[in-house]
């Protein structure tokens, strides 16, 4: 049996500790080395005798047990990327099977050598290695993972590099303080002084994880390296350093924050590239949080003021976007003196992007103002800007404002809301852009708490009607979704008077999604207003549509019945809805007929068993012998479903 001999040999080879030598040599050498396949094998066989004991021992527990592992290992170098990827994703299985020692001495060196694979494989590898500590023998040996991760941290592809850094950060925690200085910190230094920008960007993410746990001399070195990278020649590296500045500041001693970090922060915040400057704004939040209040004015504020007035809109946008965080970080005094005027400027910025970002923060900013003169600041400084934004030329700005402006009413209280905010709400309800109107309507509950919705109802109604008839179905869809909320706040009378007709009109919309949403809306309304209301206002209209010449409208009746039966209860369903459904089983259009079958199945649980047996069952049986295939199918579905539900009802009655 030559086959099995080959096989045994193969498994044996895989078990030998030299298997990775082959792998390495063949990968490294590329296609030309294909012929080498034989040579290392014989070399391995020679050396194999040295470890024969081990091989025998391994052989004792059966050749088959390691076979899957052999396949996995083999697939690590398969030509097909997908297979290599699969294998890399099962790397922990391979490592577990090999044991900690061989993982360290064979698998890891092999992996370190594989680094020139496809980025996708490298990404998977970088992720796996972050969880490898136990597989190499625990924290004591965790430094074995550093060489492959170091190579991965120098790769060009950003996602691979970031993942490698993430894994390095993870395993740094598992290093003992000694190992951190002996193995980890030198790696950081090597990366920080690498030739190509990729390794230097990776280094930026590693300083903060090792800094707290090393001796003071090493700390000084780390600070020096970070300083160097902050003024690196390549903007990519400066960006990486700027984005880690806040994080690094957090682990530094306060004195060094003041002496080192502030100067770096100031330099990065006035970098020639705006992509670097804007990252410094992010760091500003962390740095300001760390410093005592009395130092903020001299150390942070000049830079922050400059950023808020930067000539690049990207930087100003960043300031606007981080405004709430900045406000919390610098405290109430500086907010009053500096941030209020800065915020005013951002709200009046010449770029719409910046105004929109600032408009988004209006509510949060006002909420966090010091309470003692909050109202005064809002009324005299913020509100005038807000008023202007209501008639901004850019719709994104207006809709950003509309999504938060209602929140101001709780802050300002009833009188101010009526006097100052209400006109703005009303103006926005009439805005030409539907998104703005929708944003106002969707936040009505905030105002309701303060002044009641009645104040708005006069303007609300035209706005709702207009949105309900908007030419874009997505706008109609959006307003339908707010109907139950509006109904709850406006009350049943107002609703019957003004909105009911709208809700019914949506049922015959020419877009299916609207009809579907309208159906669902009716159900929610019935849940809110009760079955009696439904019987009087909705059910007659819905059932009336069963005689509509358009079959789509007839089907809508069925869909409404499906949705409403449960909320309306057994009596209405049996007495009013069921006869209509049954009558529709004679419809000319097959689509209506099979929807009758579906409806009967759906409302079955609401009906009593008597009605099921005497009325529903004969109709379904008739439909089951329909000429149309689909009608037959759904009728049979309904019968089998119905039997189940009726039998459970019978069971219930019996017990």
């Amino acid at each position, binding site marked *: 049996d030559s086959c099995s001999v080959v096989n045994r040999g193969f498994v044996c080879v895989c078990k030998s500790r030299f298997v990775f030598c082959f792998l390495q040599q063949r990968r490294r050498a590329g296609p030309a080395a*294909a012929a080498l396949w034989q040579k290392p094998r014989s070399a391995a066989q020679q050396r194999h005798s040295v470890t024969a004991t081990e091989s025998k021992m391994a052989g004792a527990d059966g050749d088959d047990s390691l076979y899957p592992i052999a*396949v996995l290992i083999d697939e690590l170098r398969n030509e097909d990327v997908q297979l290599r990827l699969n294998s890399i994703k099962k790397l922990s299985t391979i490592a577990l099977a090999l044991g900690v020692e061989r993982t360290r001495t064979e698998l890891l060196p092999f992996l370190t050598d594989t680094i020139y694979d496809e980025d996708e494989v490298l990404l998977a590898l970088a992720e796996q290695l972050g969880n490898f500590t136990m597989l190499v023998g625990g924290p004591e040996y965790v430094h074995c993972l550093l060489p492959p991760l170091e190579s991965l941290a120098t790769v060009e592809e950003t996602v691979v590099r970031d993942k490698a850094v993430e894994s390095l950060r993870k395993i740094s925690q598992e290093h003992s303080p000694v190992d951190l200085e002996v193995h980890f910190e030198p790696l950081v230094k090597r990366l920080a002084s690498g030739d190509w920008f990729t390794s230097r960007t990776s280094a930026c993410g590693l300083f903060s994880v090792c800094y707290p746990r090393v001796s003071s001399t090493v700390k000084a070195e780390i600070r020096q390296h970070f300083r160097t990278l902050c003024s690196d020649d390549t903007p990519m590296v400066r960006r990486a350093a700027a984005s880690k500045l806040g994080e690094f500041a957090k682990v530094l001693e306060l004195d060094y924050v003041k002496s080192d970090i502030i100067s770096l922060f100031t330099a990065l915040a006035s970098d020639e590239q705006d992509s670097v400057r804007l990252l410094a704004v992010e760091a500003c939040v962390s740095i300001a949080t760390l410093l005592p209040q009395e130092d903020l004015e001299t150390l942070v504020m000049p830079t922050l003021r400059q950023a808020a007035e930067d000539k690049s809109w990207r930087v100003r946008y960043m300031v606007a976007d981080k405004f709430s965080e900045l406000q919390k970080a610098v405290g109430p005094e500086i907010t009053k003196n500096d941030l209020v005027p800065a915020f005013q400027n951002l709200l009046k910025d010449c770029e719409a992007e910046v105004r929109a970002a600032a408009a988004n923060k209006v509510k949060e900013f006002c909420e966090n103002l010091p309470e003692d003169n909050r109202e005064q600041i809002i009324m005299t400084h913020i509100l005038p800007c807000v008023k202007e934004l209501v008639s901004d030329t850019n719709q994104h700005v207006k809709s950003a404002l509309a999504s938060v402006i209602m929140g101001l009413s709780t802050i300002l209280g009833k009188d101010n809301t009526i006097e100052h905010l209400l006109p703005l709400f009303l103006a926005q309800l009439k805005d030409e852009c539907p998104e703005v109107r929708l944003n106002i309507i969707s936040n009505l509950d905030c105002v309701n708490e303060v002044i009641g919705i009645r104040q708005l109802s006069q303007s609300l109604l035209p706005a709702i009607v207009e949105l309900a008839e908007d030419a874009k179905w997505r706008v109609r869809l959006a307003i339908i979704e707010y109907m139950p909320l509006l109904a709850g706040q406006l009350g049943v009378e107002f609703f019957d008077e003004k909105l009911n007709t709208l809700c019914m009109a949506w049922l015959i919309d020419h877009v299916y999604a609207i009809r579907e949403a309208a159906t669902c809306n009716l159900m929610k309304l019935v849940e809110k207003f009760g079955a009696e209301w439904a019987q009087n206002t909705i059910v007659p209209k819905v059932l009336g549509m069963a005689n509509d010449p358009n079959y789509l409208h007839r089907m809508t009746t069925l869909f409404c019945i499906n949705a409403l039966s449960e909320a309306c209860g057994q009596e209405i369903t049996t007495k009013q809805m069921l006869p209509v459904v049954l009558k529709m089983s004679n419809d000319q259009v097959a689509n209506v007929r099979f929807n009758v079958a579906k409806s009967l199945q759906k409302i079955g649980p609401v009906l009593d068993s008597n009605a099921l047996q005497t009325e529903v069952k004969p109709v379904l049986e008739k439909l089951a012998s329909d000429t149309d295939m689909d009608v037959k199918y759904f009728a049979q579905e309904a019968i089998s479903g119905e039997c189940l539900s009726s039998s459970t009802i019978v069971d219930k009655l019996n017990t």
Partner: protein
Amino acid sequence: METTKLPPSSPSSPTTSFSVPSAEKVDGFPRRSMRRARQRRSHSSSQFRYQSSQVELTPLPLLKDAPVAELHDLFCKKLQQCCVLFDFLDCVADLKGKEIKRAALNELVESVATSRGVLIEPLYPEAIKMISVNIFRTLPPSENPEFDPEEDEPTLEASWPHLQLVYEFFLRFLESPDFQPSMAKRYVDQKFVLQLLELFDSEDPREREYLKTILHRVYGKLLGLRAYIRKQINNIFLRFIYETEHFNGVAELLEILGSIINGFALPLKAEHKQFLVRVLIPLHTAKSLSIFHAQLAYCVVQFMEKDATVTEYIIRGLLKYWPKTCTQKEVMFLGEIEEILDVIEPSQFIRVQEPLFKQIAACISSPHFQVAERALYFWNNEYILSLIEENCQVILPLVFATLYRVSKEHWNQTIVSLIYNVLKTFMEMNSKLFDDLTASYKVEKQKLKKKLVADGVQGHLHLSSSVMHIKSKSSQAKVCYNLNDINQKVFCFPSKHKHYSKHF
């Protein structure tokens, strides 16, 4: 605060209103372009807002009427006058001032272009200051975040009537016979060049066109800035590839680089090779490759013509980044490969033929007929054909099975007939080899059929199935054979980090 909307007659609005109706028809929803048309946004405002108070311009006497003694003084005054910026969003604002500045700029352009002896040293800082004040600005946010340079109309620069003249002046200034690089270099410094390069991101193609010519002149005249310009272009490309994937001026920068590469001295410096391997080749991965592919391919071929030894890196690099799903890009790659093969040295061809023709075979079997067609067109190229003929012993076995199979299976008749031609060519080249391969192909096919019948589905080895089949000895044996077969052929692309660094 915001200015009024532009009336429809304004020069820049027609471009934005074209795409609206067609987009509206598709799904009834306006795309951003629609909103854009309705609400024009400030364009030069980022620049404009820093001018605290608007200066009233008064017309100066004409340059041509000025007595020689006062010419330079007047020239200087005109330059200063042109430093005043105007709001072009409000097209009716300060029309008088705009006209005065336009006339002054026109005069300056003409004066620099035609009269000699105007450019004296004291004018350099004034001229550069005027240029800086006008052209350097933070480009406004794109009005269309999903801007697709192939589909969408670009947003044009509102202040172009003035900006164009400033660029024109700059260009004439650089091209003037009086231009003294030794004086200019004090003012056209690294910071200036960096800002100039950032402007290449402008969405307005007219602006990029000017920038291209200007940067080319700067590179040509100011030798001290050359290395710096190359380095900054490098950074822009790296940011484009690995960070933002967005930069409007890649094609223009590549065009300049094409002529720069042309002028490289031999042997190529390590810096230039690194640029090729770490920037130019990875640029092929960009999503928007089609916009700058012609310029990129030109640069790549320029490198090869300079130094043939880079061929292998180029081809292996392209193979590494070969598009996996985008057939449009695959056709571009094939086009570039043909351009490369057109000038390849036979000795270099031999080094890459194996992996290359494996990829070509894969393209031939692509179900997308344009890809297959583009690959098969290689056989119409006489030089490539001669290379194939010389290496028929290696290439034919690589592509034979694919050609044979695809000739029987492809859905597209054109492809089938193209393949027949290729097979015929091979038959004429080496009929003995062709017959051998045909015979062995048939035997292999028979074997495979038998095997499949005998083994059922187990013939297909996959990780999961192999784990399930471990108890079956016979399947294990087969696994071994299969894997060994595959492993014999394993090809790997050398590490871009290790391998290249070793050689460079």
